[in-house]
């Protein structure tokens, strides 16, 4: 089944070249986060960050089904993968993580607020569901400008219980705004299992409460996510309104740095690690381990260069501390 899809995709829409790029981007994201984790423990990065290791498949398949820089991105706190898949520059991203003046936000934002406004990437989000009301405004703006853009609004399972989720989906629906609501259901909101946080089987069932199409797909199946987002984007671009996509995936690491993970079992984590989106897609592409290792090394190399770039970049000057508060 997946195999069939693969053929079709690899053959048609989805050239093998592109497929290999997705593998490379996933490897880059994972290396970036493994490196970030290490730098954090070495004290080279501070604050907090949310690793998406295990969820990389969603990021690369989603971005590849859209038009990054043309479309808008409202990213989530666990958004390193989406940032890179949207075409983010590794050096300036690393510089932002290390709080340097050369970072995307001049070191003022960090992991939780990294944005690339020129690329219509309107930033990661520190507030759960905080980007959802904003998606309504971006949607209105697109309608007013009469373009064929769409908004990709990303959030987690936990965000689906915020009031902002409700108000935003309803408004987007009644005004037929071109928004793709991408819910990354990784089974937990920090320590809160989605099974305890709601009384329904699939978060996508909530789309019906707004008269909006909603589907749930395997977030670690790149081709399936790709096709679903394609469908959603066509729907939204054609003026039919918003589309809700729930992807089921899993984060291998803790929620953030302070997480002892007492709320889940090693076995559960292990089970999900066998569904590694990278390994899975490599298999689909018939990519061997040495080939993969090659690519992994290339990714690591890029990361090291980015670290060099960031470390050789200046810190913000304290005399500029008030820069950017007001226009």
């Amino acid at each position, binding site marked *: 089944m997946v195999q069939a899809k693969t053929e079709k995709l690899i053959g048609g829409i989805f050239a093998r070249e592109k497929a290999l790029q997705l593998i490379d981007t996933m490897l880059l994201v994972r290396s970036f986060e493994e490196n970030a984790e290490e730098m954090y423990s070495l004290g080279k990065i501070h604050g907090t960050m949310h690793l998406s290791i295990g969820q990389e498949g969603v990021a690369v398949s989603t971005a590849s089904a859209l038009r990054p820089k043309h479309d*808008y991105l409202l990213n989530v706190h666990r958004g390193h993968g989406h940032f890179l898949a949207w075409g983010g520059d590794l050096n300036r991203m690393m510089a932002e993580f290390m709080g340097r003046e050369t*970072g*995307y*936000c*001049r*070191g*003022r*934002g960090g992991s939780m*607020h990294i*944005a690339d*406004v*020129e690329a219509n990437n*309107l*930033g990661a989000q*520190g*507030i759960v569901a*905080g980007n*959802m*009301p*904003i*998606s*309504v*405004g*971006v*949607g*209105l*703006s*697109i*309608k*007013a*400008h009469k373009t064929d853009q769409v908004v990709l609004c990303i959030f987690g399972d936990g965000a689906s219980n915020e*009031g*902002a989720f409700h*108000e*935003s989906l*309803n*408004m987007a629906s*009644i005004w037929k705004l071109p928004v793709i609501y991408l819910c990354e259901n990784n089974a937990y909101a920090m320590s809160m299992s989605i099974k305890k946080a709601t009384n329904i089987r699939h978060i996508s069932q909530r789309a019906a409460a707004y008269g909006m199409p909603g589907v749930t797909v395997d977030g670690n199946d790149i081709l399936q996510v790709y096709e679903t987002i394609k469908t959603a984007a066509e729907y939204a671009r054609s003026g039919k309104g918003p589309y809700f996509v729930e992807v089921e995936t899993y984060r291998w690491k803790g929620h953030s740095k302070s997480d002892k993970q007492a709320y889940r079992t090693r076995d559960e984590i292990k089970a999900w690690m066998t569904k590694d989106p990278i390994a899975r897609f490599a298999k689909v592409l018939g990519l061997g381990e040495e080939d993969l290792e090659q690519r992994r090394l290339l990714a690591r190399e890029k990361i090291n260069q980015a670290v060099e770039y960031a470390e050789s970049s200046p810190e913000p000057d304290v005399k500029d501390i008030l*820069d*950017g*508060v*007001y*226009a």
Partner: protein
Amino acid sequence: MRELTYAEALREAMRMAMEKDPSVFVIGEDIGVYGGAFGVTAGLIDQFGPERIIDTPISEAGIAGACVGAAVTGMRPIGEMQFSDFVVLAMEQLTLQAAKMRFMFGGKATVPMIMRLAGGSGTGAAAQHSGSLEAWFVNIPGLKVVIPSSPQDAKGLLLASLYDDNPVIFVEHKLLYKVRGPVPEEWYTIPLGQSHTVREGKHLTVVATSVEVMRAQQAADALAKEGIELEIIDPRTLRPLDIDPIVRSVKKTGKLLIVHEAVKMGGFGGEVAAQIAESEAFDYLDAPIRRLAGLDMPIPYNRNLEYHAVPQVENIVEESRKLVEGAY
């Protein structure tokens, strides 16, 4: 000059802006055919249609977010909170998103939006529909806070706010909507961050905002008969605050009375008092700085209690007299 009510002046400003600039739109509850709870947007939907005069479901966070998202992508939205109290439901979008976005993004985004609040007591609307919450926003860097006290200021400040590239909290007062005053017909702006000396006098400096400016003027008329001359200054913009004219005035009068309707404790008056107390005017003060403000209570329903819950003309008269006669 041609006279308009405060509500008409606001409407005219919105109309002129929308005629000139397609990026401007208005969004809020019942602002379309209903014309807004206080009639401020009456008729605008006939001219601009439902795409630019957007009636929303009852979703205040959504309204604020609609403004934020539209503003950061090139529009100039004007949002309305039907009663200022309801802004409590939009604080996340206004203070964590709109106010901080530009800074968090390293100065690379602008959020040119206005959120209009219908504030204040005096209509019998009781505790949940009579709030004066401007002090909250004054504590939030990234926002500007504008609070017009006359029809002329309402129009000029709204147009200035619209073309300021920062999010502006625009605080109106229900009792002022029907107040008439001269309003130039042409397009004009009143720069944000400029205090306005409404009346000159030598005995006492009165800093008043919103509806209290009107009351201070009536008090000044009464006191003038006794030979007491009030100098009334309306900051008009609370953030940024143009303190210099107040400093100069206090150096002249040696006395300062601050009047606002909002609750005194934690209210904006404290900021004015503090800035004067740490300014060069401090050495010229020959009486303690006094604040006349809302009592420490929610706004009551009973008409008489409601009247006594906030500063009225006679309170300003009495307090001014005491200050000038050296009672403190």
